[in-house]
């Protein structure tokens, strides 16, 4: 049975062209770009080309691109750089819905004596911009807000936020891991100081990322060692993956329109199809400002793990924000921050598409999922056929 992969916000397949491009760098062109001989030196040239392609996708200059090992390293580097550069500034502004790469780091820094403001979001996952502005303080070292949310796809107005931040002389970082390659980004037209992206979210392999640092922005490296990346990130370059990321960015630029037309059409078809055929279902997150590939739907009174495992019977891959699948005992921090009631949060499923999905696949999910939900609901003590909650313990439902 063919795999129907609708979990592209978790990771993506390496595109065939990308794989083909990177392979020679394992066994033929394995030289170290730092070497004096031309066997190694030629690889340095290819890395330069990859840097140009990444820069082109986000409207940046090549020298603003620092290759890292992943999105998490990029996020950590940006935030720690800002704090280390300004020892008198110990305040960080972020949001309650950030990826753990930012959220857990900020919690850690709070324990080490930093002050953090975690901005709340509304029911749709939106920021209150007035509250944001008022949270900026004299001792704010950095603002870190994600461009697009990995669970709901909701897009934050980071360019506007960066403008407000710039006016107060504060650094602005955005975790754009989910946004890059899915929506157009032009760093020349905004005032964001630092941006993180990750290769494996846009059809490059795992283990490569980028930190964009705007020209003129003060920066302290996180990995200290060799002169690689102009001394901004020590460590021998992951040449094959950097070449791959360059190719993937080129491909993403080429597919950008498709992403926002065909992928969006398939996402909307899936979303509307499921909402129509499954009662007591609801989309989580801002539908007006959202990534074209993501939908997060809650099916009331059932639990996400069961849904995923039953979909697995048909090789359909997706994710859930339920407690049982998160590895903790509480549902996703993003859905909780949005105030999604428990009856809904435990039964949330995220579908995230890519250009490789087909209409047949979407039709199959629309066909297979409704009976799965009905089956689990028949087992649920909270569900009655007519669609109302039965009387037990309804005080626990928020």
């Amino acid at each position, binding site marked *: 049975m063919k795999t129907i992969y609708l979990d592209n916000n978790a990771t993506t397949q390496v595109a065939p062209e990308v794989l083909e491009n990177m392979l020679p760098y394992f066994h033929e062109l394995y030289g170290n770009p730092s070497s004096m001989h031309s066997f190694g030196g030629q690889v340095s040239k290819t890395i330069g080309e990859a840097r140009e392609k990444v820069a082109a996708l986000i409207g940046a200059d090549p020298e603003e691109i620092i290759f890292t090992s992943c999105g998490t390293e990029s996020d950590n580097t940006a935030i720690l750089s800002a704090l280390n550069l300004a020892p008198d500034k110990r305040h960080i502004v972020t949001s309650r819905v950030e990826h753990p790469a930012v959220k857990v780091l900020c919690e850690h820094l709070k324990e080490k004596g930093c002050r953090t403001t975690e901005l709340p979001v509304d029911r749709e996952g939106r920021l209150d911009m007035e509250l944001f502005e008022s949270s900026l303080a004299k001792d704010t070292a950095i603002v870190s807000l994600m461009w697009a949310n990995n669970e709901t796809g909701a897009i934050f107005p980071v360019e506007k936020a960066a403008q407000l931040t710039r006016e107060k002389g504060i650094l602005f970082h955005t975790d754009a891991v989910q946004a890059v390659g899915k929506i157009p980004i032009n760093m020349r037209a905004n005032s964001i100081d630092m941006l993180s992206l990750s290769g494996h979210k846009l059809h490059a392999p795992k283990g490569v990322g980028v930190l964009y640092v705007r020209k003129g922005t003060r920066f302290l490296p996180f990995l200290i060692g060799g002169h690689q990346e102009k001394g901004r990130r020590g460590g021998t370059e992951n040449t094959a993956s950097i070449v791959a990321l360059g190719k993937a960015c080129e491909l993403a630029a080429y597919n950008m329109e498709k992403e926002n037309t065909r992928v969006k059409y398939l996402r909307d078809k899936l979303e509307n199809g499921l909402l129509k055929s499954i009662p007591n279902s609801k989309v989580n997150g801002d539908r007006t400002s959202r990534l074209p590939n993501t939908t997060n739907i809650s099916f009331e*009174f*059932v*639990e996400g*793990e*069961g849904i995923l*495992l*039953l979909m697995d*019977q048909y090789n359909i891959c997706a994710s859930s924000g*339920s*407690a*049982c*699948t998160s*590895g*903790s*005992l*509480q*549902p996703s921090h993003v859905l909780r921050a949005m105030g999604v009631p*428990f*009856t809904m949060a*435990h039964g949330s499923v995220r579908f995230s598409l890519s250009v490789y999905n087909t209409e047949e696949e979407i039709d199959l999910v629309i066909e297979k999922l409704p009976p799965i939900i009905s089956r689990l609901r*028949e*087992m*649920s*003590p*909270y569900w009655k056929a007519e669609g109302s909650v039965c009387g*037990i*313990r309804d005080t*626990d*439902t*928020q």
Partner: protein
Amino acid sequence: MWEYTDKVKEHFLNPRNVGEIENPDGVAEVGSIACGDALKLTFKLDENKRIKDAKFKTFGCASAIASSSALTEIIKGMTLEEAMKVTNQNIAEYLGGLPEEKMHCSVLGQQALEQAIANCKGAPAKEPGEEIVCECFGVTDREIERAVKENHLTTIEEVTNYTKAGGGCGNCHEKIQGIIDRVYAASKPEASKETKSRKLTNIQKIKMIEETIEREIRPSLKQDGGNVDLIDVIGNRVIVATRGACATCKASQFTLKGLVEYKLREFVSPDLVVDEEPS
């Protein structure tokens, strides 16, 4: 992805006895939708007072559904006395084991069974004097105590895996530790006998109290931003003052009795009584 046994998968995909029995002899509802697991169990007895039929409805993950299915299969044909002896271990074993983090699913089944039997016998579901320890998941001290005893749990993490207690805000970790300590202290009667027979001079007693506070009590209070100071010892009355977060904490009364007094009794003398310095 969870590592489920084939038996768990099979019971999840083909659950036995889904539904609700009309006019049941025993019924129980445990868990809640907020916790992510809920189970409604109903059963019917035959003329020989054996469980003739049992049905369940479960909201929860695959292992919760499989545990419920296993439970109904296990208890069919049992007398109430036999069913009362069913433990969460029996449910887990029936399924060929559960991942450690999912053991609470089997505990949920055992709790439902216990409540349903109590309901059948007309007894109140909860024993008087039971106290909710974990407010996030509504777990009582008796439930934790039973899980600790029957599964030989020794750490807070294990208690969370088995009962969910402590898996939310974490405020009850101290209480859970207290219960674990209590269970194991009770199972070592020789040790406590020895402490009882010990005669201490006043100087020795004060010194030991100071040492115990420093070594056993202060580190765990400091983790939560609190502290405690020894003010005076009058006979067996130990007077302390709470500091930092403890001074303003609603649960500090519990800290005094459950942690300070408990530890001092364990390490110094079982006759000690801890009081807070009058403000």
